[in-house]
């Protein structure tokens, strides 16, 4: 079932175009996008755990930097999707890539919990020492994304 779906993806015209003509270009765009994503997210997360930019309110960093991260994330997701369909049949058996997808799901859950639960009480810790839940969310985010990028690089060596 999964095998035949992967084979179907790989026969799509866009998959053939990427795998035969523009894979290096798409991969390079993916690296630029993930670098901008991780770097800007790190600025937000490092403030969230209280290590940097302490003179600024968390919401100042959050509101002004996170839109850049989201822009880069969309670009990384599109280029990542293109790379995936180009080699879907082999990627579904690529262990680091499977771990990467699991970690991506966990990062999504962590982010959703932060936005919908922890962030609601931001007024209490916007200045000064962040709440324990905020710190935990920030460290989890940093750890998960380092893991995601590591697995992504390892996927190229399988």
């Amino acid at each position, binding site marked *: 079932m999964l095998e035949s779906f992967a084979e179907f993806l790989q026969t799509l015209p866009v998959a053939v175009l990427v795998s035969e003509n523009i894979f290096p270009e798409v991969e*390079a765009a993916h690296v630029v996008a993930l670098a*901008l994503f*991780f*770097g*800007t997210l790190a600025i937000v997360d490092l403030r969230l755990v209280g290590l940097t930019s302490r003179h600024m309110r968390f919401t100042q960093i959050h509101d002004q*930097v996170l839109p850049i991260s989201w822009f880069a994330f969309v670009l990384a997701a599109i280029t990542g999707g293109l790379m995936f369909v180009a080699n879907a049949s082999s990627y579904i058996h690529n262990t680091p890539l499977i771990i990467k997808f699991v970690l991506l799901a966990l990062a999504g859950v962590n982010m959703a919990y932060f936005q919908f639960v922890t962030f609601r009480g931001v007024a209490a810790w916007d200045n000064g020492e962040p709440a324990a839940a905020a710190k935990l969310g920030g460290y989890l985010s940093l750890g998960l994304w380092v893991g995601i990028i*590591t697995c992504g690089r390892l996927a190229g060596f399988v």
Partner: protein
Amino acid sequence: MFIVEFSDWLANTAISQYFQVTPWVIPGMQTIHILCLALVLAGAVMVDLRVLGRGLKSESMAAVAERFLPSITPLVLVLLFTGIILIIAEPGRTLGNPAFYVKMVCLVLALIITARLRRYAATATTGDRAPVLLALLSMLLWTTIIVAGRFIAYIEPI
């Protein structure tokens, strides 16, 4: 030709041979390299966007530059260290590669431009014209550095 002879000599040294047979060296160094590049790119982009009147608008130009630019120096040192290990591990693939030299030229230009932006941020007074061209060039150069780095894997060494 000197580069070819040097690469061959380097590839036969004990340290290169050790890196060649140690499977974690190349993916491990590449991962650290990408994570540091992400932080450098994000820091540079935050300053570039501030010059263009975007990004962290609530902070002064000087504050944004002092927040992000000093960390570029230690990060570039880690990038040089991991980069040198990657060259020692695969001398022929890197030193004979046109993409590697494009990357190095762009790196030197990007560092010069970053230093000039830092000086501008420290001395600028209200009414000074923002160095828009330098900021745009900075973003273009850091992006090219990442793209050229990825293309080392695809362009044939001469």
